[in-house]
C-alpha cells in the first residue's frame, strides 16, 4: 500500500480522498493555493504545502509545483480528484516519470478516452451501441452534409478534443451546415487548440444515463450500475440519481456485459464513467468515457455499498477487484444527489463570499459531502459547489421525500445558494413521475431560459 498520498485537488473531493486515506491508514498531503489557506482539506491532511497563488493555472494546474510538493513530502502516489489535472494524460506521464503513482488510468488510456472519436471507435468494436455519426473527423462541411443526409436530421457537430458544450452546433437542415461548420471549427480551435469536428445524430429530448465502472490492473472489470443525470443547466449537472428510473434490469445487464468486454479490450484501469444518451424509445447510445472519479459518485456508493474512492487507491496499489469487493454488485434502494452551488437564484451568477451560518442536515438516509463551514469562505476563483447533499431511501419516492426534508433543514447563510431551485425541481410532478430529459430545466423556468438567451 502507498506510503503517502498527495491530493492534487481542493474542496470537497480533496476531503473525500482524505477520508478514504484515513480509513486505509495512509498519511496524506494537501496542496493549496493562497486562497485556500483556511480550507478544511488543509486542516485535515497530515501535511500541507502551499503551491501557488489563487489562480488555478499557477497552483492546482501547475505541474512543477505539485510534483515538487510530492517530492518534498516524500509522497509516492497522487490522487487527482476530478476536474483540474484528473484527465490530463501529460500530467499522468510526468507522475510516472517522477516515480509517483497516479491514481487513475494509465496515460495512454486517458489519452484514448480524451479523443472522443477514438473512444467511439473502441466502444463500437466491442459491441457497445454508439450514436450514429461520422466515421472519424470530418474533412469538410460537404462531408458533414453527406453524413447528415444518411443519418437524418437533426444532427450535432462536436469538437473532437473537447466537451462541456463548446465547439458544438446543432444543425436541423442541410442549408445550415456551412455556417454551423465554420463556427464550430473556430470555437473548437479557440477552446481546445484543435478545429477537428465530428458529427452525431441529435436526440431532441435525451436522457443522460451513465454507468460507473472500475477496473483493476489484472484484467478485472466491474460495472456498478448506472446514474441518471438529466437535470442539467447548460451541460452542468444539478441533480443526479441512481438507479435511473428509465433503465430496466435487462437493459442494465446487457450494457454492463458489453462495457465489461469493451473496457477489458482497451486496457482500462481504475475508476471511470461511461456516458450514454437515451432516446425517446429507450435506446442507449454511447457518448464518451470520463476517465476519472466523478462528482456524483456518492449516489452509486449508496446504492451499492461500495467505497469507490478507497477502491481507486486500492486498485492503484495493485489489488485485485476480487480482494477489494465483497462480491458481485447488487443494487439496493434509490439515491439522489443535489449539487448545492453558491449562486444567485435570480441571475444565476456565482455568489462567492463568507458563510455566516452553516448547519447541514443529517439523520437517517442523508449524506453531506462538503468542505464548507461556518465562517468559511467560498472563493471566487474556483467552482461554485458548496455542498453535495445526497439521500438514500428504500425506493425513489422515499429518496425524494428525504431530499426535500433535508433541503428544508439545510441552513446556509451569507451566500445565495441553489437550494430553492432544487426544491422547485423536486416538487415538480414530472420529476416525481420520473419523466426526465435534459431539457427539463428549460421547461421549468421558461422565462429565465428566455432571459439568458
Amino acid at each position: 500500500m502507498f506510503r503517502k498520498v498527495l491530493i492534487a485537488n481542493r474542496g470537497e473531493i480533496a476531503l473525500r480522498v482524505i477520508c478514504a486515506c484515513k480509513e486505509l491508514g495512509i498519511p496524506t498531503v494537501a496542496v493549496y493555493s493562497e486562497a485556500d489557506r483556511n480550507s478544511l482539506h488543509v486542516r485535515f491532511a497530515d501535511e500541507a504545502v502551499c503551491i501557488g497563488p489563487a489562480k488555478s493555472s499557477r497552483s492546482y494546474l501547475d505541474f512543477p509545483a505539485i510534483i515538487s510538493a510530492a517530492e518534498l513530502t516524500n509522497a509516492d502516489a497522487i490522487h487527482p480528484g476530478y476536474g483540474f489535472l484528473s484527465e490530463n494524460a501529460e500530467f499522468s506521464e510526468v507522475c510516472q516519470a517522477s516515480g509517483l503513482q497516479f491514481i487513475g488510468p494509465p496515460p495512454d488510456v486517458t489519452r484514448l478516452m480524451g479523443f472522443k472519436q477514438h473512444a467511439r471507435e473502441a466502444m463500437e468494436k466491442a459491441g457497445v451501441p454508439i450514436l450514429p455519426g461520422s466515421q472519424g473527423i470530418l474533412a469538410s462541411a460537404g462531408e458533414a452534409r453527406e453524413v447528415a443526409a444518411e443519418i437524418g436530421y437533426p444532427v450535432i457537430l462536436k469538437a473532437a478534443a473537447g466537451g462541456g458544450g463548446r465547439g458544438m452546433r446543432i444543425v436541423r437542415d442541410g442549408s445550415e451546415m456551412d455556417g454551423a461548420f465554420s463556427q464550430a471549427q473556430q470555437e473548437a480551435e479557440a477552446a481546445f487548440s484543435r478545429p477537428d469536428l465530428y458529427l452525431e445524430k441529435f436526440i431532441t429530448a435525451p436522457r443522460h444515463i451513465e454507468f460507473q465502472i472500475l477496473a483493476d490492473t489484472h484484467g478485472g472489470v466491474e460495472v456498478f450500475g448506472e446514474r441518471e443525470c438529466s437535470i442539467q443547466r447548460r451541460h452542468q449537472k444539478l441533480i443526479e440519481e441512481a438507479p435511473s428510473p428509465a433503465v430496466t434490469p435487462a437493459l442494465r445487464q446487457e450494457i454492463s456485459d458489453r462495457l465489461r468486454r469493451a473496457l477489458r479490450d482497451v486496457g482500462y484501469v481504475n475508476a471511470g464513467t461511461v456516458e450514454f444518451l437515451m432516446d425517446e424509445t429507450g435506446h442507449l447510445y454511447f457518448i464518451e468515457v470520463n476517465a476519472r472519479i466523478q462528482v456524483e459518485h456518492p449516489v452509486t456508493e449508496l446504492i451499492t455499498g461500495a467505497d469507490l474512492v478507497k477502491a481507486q487507491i486500492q486498485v492503484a496499489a495493485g489489488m485485485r477487484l476480487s480482494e477489494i469487493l465483497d462480491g458481485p454488485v447488487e443494487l439496493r434502494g434509490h439515491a439522489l444527489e443535489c449539487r448545492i452551488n453558491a449562486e444567485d437564484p435570480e441571475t444565476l451568477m456565482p455568489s462567492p463570499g463568507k458563510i455566516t451560518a452553516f448547519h447541514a442536515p443529517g439523520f437517517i438516509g442523508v449524506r453531506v459531502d462538503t468542505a464548507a463551514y461556518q465562517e468559511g469562505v467560498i472563493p471566487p476563483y474556483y467552482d461554485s459547489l458548496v455542498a453535495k447533499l445526497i439521500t438514500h431511501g428504500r425506493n425513489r419516492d422515499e429518496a425524494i421525500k428525504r431530499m426535500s426534508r433535508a433541503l428544508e433543514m439545510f441552513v446556509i447563510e451569507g451566500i445565495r445558494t441553489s437550494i430553492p431551485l432544487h426544491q422547485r425541481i423536486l416538487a415538480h410532478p414530472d420529476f416525481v413521475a420520473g419523466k426526465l430529459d435534459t431539457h427539463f430545466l428549460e421547461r421549468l423556468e421558461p422565462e429565465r431560459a428566455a432571459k439568458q438567451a
Partner: protein
Amino acid sequence: MDLKEIKELVQVVIDSGVAELEVTRGDSKVRIRRQVEAPRQEIVIPAQAVSAAGQPAAAPAPNPAPAAGPAEAQEAAQAEPEDDLHFVKSPIVGTFYEAPAPDAEPFVKVGDHISPGQVLCIIESMKLMNEIEAEISGTIVAKLVENGKPVEYGQALFSVRPD
C-alpha cells in the same frame, strides 16, 4: 479563592491567549491550563532532512511538532520592527540553497547590501535550479530558511531593510 475569582482568572486566560496560568494566594493555588490546538504546520518536512537522492526519509516526527529551524528563524526575524521590513518570498515550491554549490560561499549574508537583479539564493524544483533575484535595493536583515530545507510558495526567505 472563591468561584467568582476563579471565573475571572479563567476569563483572563481566555482573553490573553496565555496557555497556562498558576495563581497562589495564601493557602489556595489554582492552575488553569487552556487546551491549545496543535500548531498548524505549513512547512511539511519532518525534522530529519529529506535527501535529494530520494532515499526514504526516516519516519517523520509526530504531527504537532513544527519543523524547528524555519519557525525559530522566523520568530527571531519578528523581533525586528516588521513594518519597515521587506520580505523576499519564494515564487515556487522547492528546496532552498543559499550558495551556488555545496562548498561555495553563500550568495548573500546578513548585513550585505543587495540590488535589483542580484541573485539571493537558489530554489531547486524537480531537478531544476531556479535563481531567485532581488527586486529591491536594501540590506539583508535575516535569512529565514536553513540551507537545504524545503520551502513552499509564498514562504519568506529573507527579510530586507529597503534603502
